[in-house]
């Protein structure tokens, strides 16, 4: 048994704040990007609370109509462009080199460049609030003609376009760095079929980013030119072309913000189940199939335009349940007969599976055109995608944070507060969004700042608002837990969970070039291999000492 000394108050590798923001170390870039994205998440959460307060009962006027439009636009924009997508790739910037045994990410300067583009993009987007007419107000989709210079002539809309472009370019830069690292920097022995599940998920995520995100850049460029010079997105074809380009990005981004966190949840499940991951090869193949299908379904967002093929887009949307089913099966089979330790990361992974299932199954419903015609632009859609995004991204993110926090900081996050954090978030998510399914099926449209009392939507909206404050309380508990654990948390050591993958073979936090020495890589779980070999050796030695012949020596 090894004893671990507490980390000194300032570790040798610790940096000044200035150094942290100019460092080319992939861990620092990943960390500051993650922290910045999380700060945007908190900001977007506060905007969501404002919206839910406004909608708590009919007739409330916490925000004016125009401000409400700005708030819901910035909430959605922040969540996708500044929080979820950047965070999903930033986690890869931090972890992928560690998981594949690389000393460094490929193109570290470019990754640093990306961080500053991302931060600038976010600040420019929010600077819209400082302009005379406020921030953008054409929703996170900015559909034309709602976003053109006639309907939305304000400067805030232009700031928004510039911010979106900068943040998207940054995410593409990180994706290129991570993908090139996976291709070029794998440790000796680490073939593609030995890279960890999380790295597989990052590979497919980066493929999605690099092939789908350029469509958004084209859409934003066309929109900007149209706003200033006109004549680009002219009706009737222009708005449809814009929607095609936007959703060619807009649907895959939902998977960009899903796969890394799915894999974080799966890593937590495998480690907490103290079992080898079940169905590794099927998972790798299903990730590829899943991403290819997710690139193919974008126009199911456009059924009501009448300008797309319902048959094709409905078919491929429904086909998504095949790879999703494989992944759920693998997750459950990994837990099956495992010696499960119920840590907070495991609870969040379970929450991920349960809540995303609600989002996924309701997605199959609205992938059917007849139902989609009825539910389009209602609160049913809002509830559906919040179950995919909160279930998929937020719960997966927390599973990953509780799992990898010790590796990043050297301290373990408190389990007691962690479980309270989990419980509040589960209650909050159910209470906020289940009522919205009913509101949507009763016809309550999305993106409205008020509704008449006679519709009878007040009670369900009040419940939904109470749920939002539960989520807020859950996030507050998490922040308290982080602050407390950084000072008083248990010292982690190199491998507090008996991890499977290479990042647990180095110190916590890892040194500048990650590894002093690498263990041999014979599978996607090299540390588990080592433990099993040692156990087998001990058993053989014990059997020999007792005078038994060695068993299983075929």
């Amino acid at each position, binding site marked *: 048994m090894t004893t671990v000394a507490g980390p000194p108050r300032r570790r040798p590798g610790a940096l000044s704040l200035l150094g942290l923001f100019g460092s080319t170390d992939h861990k620092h870039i990943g960390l500051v990007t993650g922290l910045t994205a999380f700060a945007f998440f908190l900001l977007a959460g506060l905007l969501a609370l404002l919206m839910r307060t406004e909608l708590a009962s009919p007739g409330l006027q916490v925000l004016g109509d125009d401000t409400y439009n700005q708030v819901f636009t910035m909430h959605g924009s922040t969540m996708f462009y500044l929080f979820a997508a950047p965070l999903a790739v930033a986690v890869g910037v931090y972890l992928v080199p560690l998981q594949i045994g690389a000393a460094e990410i490929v193109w570290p300067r470019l990754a640093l460049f990306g961080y*500053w583009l991302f931060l600038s993009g976010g600040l420019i987007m929010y600077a819209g609030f400082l302009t005379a007419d406020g921030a953008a107000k054409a929703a996170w989709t900015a559909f034309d003609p709602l976003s053109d210079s006639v309907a939305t002539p304000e400067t805030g809309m232009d700031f928004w376009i510039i911010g979106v472009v900068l943040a998207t370019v940054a995410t593409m830069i990180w994706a290129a760095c991570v993908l090139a690292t996976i291709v070029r920097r794998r440790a000796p022995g680490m073939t593609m079929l030995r890279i960890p599940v999380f790295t597989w998920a990052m590979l497919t995520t980066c493929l999605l980013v690099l092939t789908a995100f350029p469509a958004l850049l084209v859409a934003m460029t066309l929109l900007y030119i149209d706003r200033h010079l006109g004549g680009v997105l002219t009706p009737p074809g222009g708005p449809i072309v814009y929607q095609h380009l936007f959703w060619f990005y807009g649907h895959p981004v939902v998977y960009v913000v899903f796969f890394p966190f799915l894999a974080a949840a799966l890593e937590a499940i495998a480690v907490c189940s103290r079992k080898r991951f079940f169905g590794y090869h099927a998972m790798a193949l299903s990730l*590829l199939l899943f991403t290819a299908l997710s690139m193919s379904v974008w126009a199911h967002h456009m059924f009501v335009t009448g300008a797309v*093929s319902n048959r094709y887009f409905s078919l491929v949307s429904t086909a998504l349940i095949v790879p999703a089913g494989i992944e759920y099966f693998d997750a459950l089979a990994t837990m099956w007969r495992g010696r499960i330790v119920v840590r907070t990361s495991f609870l969040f992974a379970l929450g991920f599976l349960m809540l995303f299932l609600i989002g996924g199954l309701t997605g199959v419903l609205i992938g059917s055109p007849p139902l989609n015609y009825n539910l389009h632009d209602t609160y049913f859609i809002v509830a559906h995608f919040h179950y995919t995004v909160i279930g998929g991204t937020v719960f997966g993110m927390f599973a990953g944070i509780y799992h990898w926090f010790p590796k990043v900081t050297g301290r373990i996050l408190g389990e007691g507060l962690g479980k309270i954090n989990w419980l509040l978030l589960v209650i909050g998510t159910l209470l906020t969004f289940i009522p919205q399914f009913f509101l949507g099926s009763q016809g309550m449209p999305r993106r409205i700042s008020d509704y008449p009392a006679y519709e009878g939507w007040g009670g369900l909206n009040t419940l939904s608002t109470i749920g939002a404050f539960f989520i807020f309380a859950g996030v507050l508990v998490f922040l308290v837990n982080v602050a407390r654990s950084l000072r008083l948390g248990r010292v982690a050591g190199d491998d507090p969970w008996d991890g499977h993958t290479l990042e647990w073979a180095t110190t916590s936090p890892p040194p500048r070039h990650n590894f002093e020495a690498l263990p041999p890589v014979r599978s996607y779980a090299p540390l588990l291999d080592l433990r099993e070999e040692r156990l087998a050796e001990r058993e053989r030695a014990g059997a020999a000492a007792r005078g038994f012949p060695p068993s299983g020596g075929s």
Partner: protein
Amino acid sequence: MLGRPWSVFVLWAIFLGVSLAVLWAIIGLGPVEGWVPVATFLMSIVVTLGMAAVAGAGAWRARLRAGRNAAPEAIPDFSFPTVLAAISLASMALGLELGPWLILIGAGGLGVAIGALSTESRATRRAAAQASGGDG
């Protein structure tokens, strides 16, 4: 089948290609609904195959260099010119809204950053050469 990075890209491009073929078979090439989906899809396949080609070429080059001692790669721990370059570029983009003065300031900053980056690159190359000389 998935043992090499390029084969992963090719397999993914094949999946996309099958999906595109089904789309094409169903919708054909209509006036609006036809060309935009097919063109965007096709671009994705081309980009993916491009990545496969780059990954394949990289692997081929690595095989050619196998056995030769690779020069050590030197990377500076901090790169403030990179930070300046990014901020300058963002300023130029914002200058589209706030006026040419900001574009000019951004362009100046970008020029300084590129100069500093080239100095930084030379310094890191020297450090790498010294390191390999010292090792040798």
